[in-house]
């Protein structure tokens, strides 16, 4: 298991290098000369443009610039926001807890919904419970999150007044209020993950339940519960965990819409602002941060799958 860990971790390095090159390239993806864009447009004073070129090191060869940028990034220095003048790293760390709160709770909600629904659908295959769960899941997959968010706000915030329509309360200002404010955004964000995970779990369980070893277990007199939870679930978990790992990227991406809709000051809304303001260092910082996060989640998923399925450990 240790050697697997080392091997998998090593395989992540080239991905991170590629990611860093792409992120660094964002500067060059903006139309026109970045220094001119930063100085405020084509009529900016040449002195100001020269100053910006100098301060950004745009006069050096590109590999030198990349090396310097990467060196600082590795040490946690992602530069300074062109817009707010805040250090990017501290701005990201300020905002990350909000995004993690929403995505974390979205994940919890998704599991609370998906796991029981998946088990029920798989064990009552073809019955009304299965049709209901599959139908709701299809609806969940088909509903755009902004629409779902609006409907949830309309019903649970504006009509029933159970939850706030917008805003974020820090956990330090009250754990209950913090949770209350996160329920609607987390449900909005988690719906798709719940639907996707439920369908994966159902499919995987159905497949496993038809295998010989399950029939053998049943024939040996094991109770349905033991068959399901001890033998089937572990075998079915692999694909579900893989899907969840893939969904980590979706959760981060989806937080852009959800945070804007619910006015949550997280990384998603920060990314939107950075795009609008052409705040390249912030954008680079967020993309890099999110990219590293997704890579790490996938690494964790690989390891969990290996733990679940000993056959994978040898690969």
């Amino acid at each position: 298991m240790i050697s697997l860990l080392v091997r998998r971790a090593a395989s992540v390095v080239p991905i991170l290098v590629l990611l860093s090159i792409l992120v660094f390239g964002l500067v060059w993806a903006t139309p026109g000369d970045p220094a001119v864009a930063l100085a405020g447009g084509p009529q900016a004073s040449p002195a100001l443009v020269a100053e910006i070129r100098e301060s950004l090191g745009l006069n050096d060869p590109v590999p030198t610039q990349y090396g310097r940028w990467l060196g600082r990034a590795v040490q946690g220095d992602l530069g300074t926001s062109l817009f707010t003048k805040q250090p990017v790293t501290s701005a990201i760390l300020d905002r990350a807890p909000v995004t993690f709160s929403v995505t974390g709770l979205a994940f919890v909600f998704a599991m609370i919904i998906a796991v029981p629904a998946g088990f029920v659908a798989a064990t009552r295959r073809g019955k009304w419970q299965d049709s209901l769960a599959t139908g709701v899941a299809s609806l969940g997959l088909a509903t755009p999150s902004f629409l779902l968010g609006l409907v949830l706000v309309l019903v649970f915030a504006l009509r029933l007044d159970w939850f706030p329509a917008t805003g974020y309360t820090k956990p330090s200002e009250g754990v209950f209020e913090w949770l209350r404010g996160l329920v609607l955004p987390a449900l909005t964000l988690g719906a798709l993950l719940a639907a996707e995970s439920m369908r994966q779990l159902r499919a995987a369980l159905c497949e496993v339940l038809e295998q010989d070893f399950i029939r053998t277990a049943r024939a040996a007199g094991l109770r349905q519960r033991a068959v399901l939870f001890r033998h089937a679930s572990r075998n079915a978990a692999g694909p579900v965990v893989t899907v969840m790992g893939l969904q980590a990227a979706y959760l981060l991406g989806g937080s852009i819409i959800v945070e804007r809709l619910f006015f949550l000051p997280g990384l998603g809304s920060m990314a939107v602002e950075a795009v609008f303001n052409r705040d390249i260092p912030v954008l680079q910082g967020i993309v890099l941060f999110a990219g590293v996060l997704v890579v790490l989640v996938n690494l964790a998923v690989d390891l969990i799958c290996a733990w679940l399925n000993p056959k994978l450990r040898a690969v």
Partner: protein
Amino acid sequence: MHRSPWRVRPLALSVVFLTFLAACGGDDSPAAQPTTTQSTSAESADSTDVPPGPGPSTDAPVTDPTAPGAIDGVEYDPDAVLRIGWHLNPTSLDPFREPTEENLALTALAYDRLTNRLPTGEIVPMLAESWGYNDDATELVMHLRDGVVFHDGTPFNAEAVRANMDRARTIEGSSAASVLALVESVEVIDDLTVRFVSSSPNAVLTTSLADRAGSMISPAAFDEDLSLVESGAGPFELVEHRPGEVTIYERFDDYWDPEVAKVARVEVYYMGDQTTRANALRSGQIDMSHFNPAGLGDVEGQPGLDIEMRPTSQYYQMSIDWQYEPFGDVRVRQAIMHALDRDGICQAILQGLCETYAQVVPESSIAFNPEIPNDHYAYDPDKARQLLADAGYADGFEFDLVILAGLPPYGEMSEVIQAQLGEVGIRVNLVPLEPALVAEATITNREFPSYLAARLSRDPSLAIENYWLPTSPINFSGVTTERLQELYLASISTSDPDARRAILQDAMQEITDQVLDVVIAFPQYLFVHTDRVLGFQVPDSQAFIIRGVGIAK
């Protein structure tokens, strides 16, 4: 150093481009759309200066701001919090660096100016109690209010004014440098008297000083990072600023006018999404917000919410390059005006929430010429065809119209314009460009002869200076007339309100007759607030200011 009034202002242009950038970031509202806004920032007033003398506020009895009182007969809560959902995201809290006009509404909470503009457009005393110009309006003497202190305790005096003017004219990226370009020196006469000496007639200075150019920052705070902290002499003191999230102000107890801060706290939440603002308003999480016409349905008819609107000096227009051959002929320009069904555009695209004046200022402006009817260029395709034929374009012609890609209402508006001009034989090729590239592609590089954008005219002299002089930062350079240049010089050379009014109304006649701008429509500036908000008036320009606004008990 002697400067001509035609001095080119490169800085101003850079501010314009910044405005393009910042504005498109904000939101979908017309106000936030990349406008070729008046880069000078001068807020200003469609109004003339008041004669020297004590201002209206100076006689106000000194009362305790926290004592209970009433606004419009309704008792307000002096301990209340006013929560504003703001549709933009300011770059900087420094009024001399923030490029977007509308965000000055926020800096105005903490920073008083030398003069103030009322929501009606009138210029009244603020930190300057009275003032007077010399005969040719090259010198302005201001008498300052006594006993004013900045939030940090520094006293406000003539020396502070001089220090602020020096900073405003010299810091890199100052968005007020161009508006103060004519000011040669600021002299301290005594502790409470300053003299502004301009290199040429400058009667719009008092108007400019009601805006960012007149914002007074504590000189003791100059060394701090003023993009993140504020230290002014305004009615509210900054207590917390989280960029992109929220800015919180509390009442400044030593403010000179106790009638202004009627709430204890102002919280400004940066909510770019209009649906989010609508939800927050309906659920009572904010008290007021700006809206654009397209999203008004979310709040219209909701109990407890009031909608207020008025046309401002912002308008949609098509800028055209007179050096592109057909456009150089005034008959062609007039033909374009007659070919456009502007009322139809207003109804179809702006939900009818707009006015279609034929001139470039709204009715509330002193420059509004009552002799130019709104239907001066009535929709008349036959007349348009006749004018085109007279000009030698009986078969029409073709041109490229640049639009700001992805920003409503420009897409729809341009399609209607294309169809309507097509009716009279003018073929329009629509060229959507990334907003940040529009000014460069059109004004600077002249790759395209026209673009569709919004403009803020506000003070008419400053508008002429920005758009229709040979040296204007956002002009195709050829768009001007000799008569207009003469009228402009005359308008900044007199501080007499009646004389100035007459000159500016003549200028409007010239601009309208010569079609310096293809004016399309003046959208309503819309605010929605809960019925507990008292005393709010939609201002005449895009910078709304919370003065004397309270929350009902």
